[in-house]
């Protein structure tokens, strides 16, 4: 089922076989975006995430993976192309519609983004208190359940500054799923986790997706863990989808990009070096 980007549409249909593929939860259609006019991050990218699926977006550092998540949650607006969620274009949403859309999604930020003036408990209770009228007794139980799911019930009264990086990431995950959102965006959920936490968090993401019927987009570099839990993978390079496929096809793929990325090879279509003049040329420039 692996395909190169040329057969993008056909493969996306295959992803969602039997899962309401006619109306994907998320679709990016020929989307371009740049933080400045001079430097484009995404250039004509298209991808689809069917309802109820767990889809990974992978690629080298700075290829635009996090930007894709920011476009989906409406933090940035696409320069060209359309970003649709549940059939509605993000660009056409009013402020109220955008906030209504965001109430149905959860996003795990790359560095956690925990509120440093609150305890772990209050961090997780924050979205529940903001969006529901539940009594504190119920909120307490919900928060403890979420903390228990990430193995950190004992840290409820600690401040984020008292947590390690991996623990903070797990607390942030608990906050992301506090309201059991329909759509969850994970930005590097495995970074900084020890092997045990990594495995538990990976399984938790999969179980949440299946048990609650969530749709999830996972941005990660962790090939090994991702291949265990995701349904479909998009590989992004230089702002475009360069390869895609389900887990089985990725594992057996002969595509040079996929092979290089999966096997961590230094040579291949993915450049390790940021574009720069030749080293000898730069050395020569410094000499009198």
């Amino acid at each position, binding site marked *: 089922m692996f395909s190169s980007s040329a057969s993008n549409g056909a493969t996306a249909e295959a992803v969602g076989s039997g899962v309401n593929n006619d109306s994907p939860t998320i679709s990016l259609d020929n989307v371009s975006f740049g933080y400045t006019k001079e430097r484009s991050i995404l250039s004509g990218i298209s991808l689809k995430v069917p309802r109820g699926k767990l889809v990974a977006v992978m690629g080298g550092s700075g290829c635009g993976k996090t930007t894709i998540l920011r476009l989906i*949650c409406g*933090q940035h607006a696409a320069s060209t192309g359309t970003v649709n969620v549940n059939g509605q274009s993000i660009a056409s949403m009013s402020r109220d519609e955008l*906030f*209504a859309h*965001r*109430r149905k*999604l959860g*996003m795990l*930020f*790359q*560095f956690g*983004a*925990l*509120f*440093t003036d609150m305890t772990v408990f209050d961090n997780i209770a*924050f*979205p529940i208190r*903001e*969006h529901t009228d539940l009594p504190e007794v119920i909120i307490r139980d919900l928060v403890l359940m979420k903390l228990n799911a990430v193995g950190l019930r004992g840290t409820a009264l600690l401040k984020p500054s008292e947590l390690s990086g991996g623990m903070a990431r797990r607390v942030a995950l608990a906050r992301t799923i506090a309201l059991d959102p329909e759509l969850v965006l994970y930005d590097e959920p495995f970074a900084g986790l020890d092997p045990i936490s990594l495995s538990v968090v990976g399984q938790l993401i999969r179980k949440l997706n299946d048990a609650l019927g969530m749709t999830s987009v996972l941005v990660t570099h962790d090939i090994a863990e991702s291949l265990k839990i995701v349904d479909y993978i998009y590989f992004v390079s230089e702002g475009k989808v360069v390869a895609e496929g389900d887990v089985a096809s990725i594992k057996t793929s002969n595509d040079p990009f996929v092979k290089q990325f999966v096997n961590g090879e230094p040579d291949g279509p993915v450049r390790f070096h940021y574009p720069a003049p030749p080293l000898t040329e730069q050395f020569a420039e410094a000499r009198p």
Partner: protein
Amino acid sequence: MIDGITHWLIGLGASVRAGVTRLGFATRFMIAVFKASGPTFARPRLLIHELYHAGVLSLIIVLMSGLFIGMVLALQGYETLVRFGATEAMGVLVALSLVRELGPVVAGLLFASRAGSAITAEIGLMKTTEQLAAMEVMAVDPVARVVAPRFWAGVISLPLLAALFSTLGIYGGYLVAVKLIGIDNGAFWGQMQAAVDWRYDVGNGVIKSVVFACAVSLIAVFEGFDATPTAEGVSAATTRTVVTSALVILALDFILTVFMFRGSAVG
């Protein structure tokens, strides 16, 4: 030569355009803060929390400064008044200086340094660590949840701090004038009571402190919200808050004084 002038003009034009753009953004931001202020008053716990941080924690520096400035004012005032045999007017000198000018202005400067810089740094760091972005993604408006409570806490606490500054200043003046120098107690308070007008002097002083409070609070929250999300960006924003607030307070003080006390100055 011509190239140099052209470059200079291009640079000047770019700076002016950037300045006007920023002023426009600040104006839109101010409108957004006012629009998003409803939840601040609907959820007073948020406001009380910020009042504690902006107001209560600024008490020590404001009260101590007020006390010492009042004491120095009495010592310096005595040196001048004694030459004219008008030492009984010491109470009037201290009270008018404090309630009309020093109270609002110095309390405003101290507030900008102590609380304004803290507000900018806090909001700037929240932006740097993506806490504001996380709030937005959780469908919580950071202007309503983070900015508006801090703005209103500043607006409420600075006039109160200025009043306390003036009160402690007058008490400091009393300690030096009456207890140390030996000016008559009755003359000190009696002349003050007769010469200080509640509406004209105290009222205008309160208006000044409210205007300064609005200006300093807006500058503090705006600089934090607009800070470049890096360590040096937050540092620069904090510095800008203190410098801009000081200049704005002094400029506004002159303008307000012209309108409020022009009659007595011109005669």
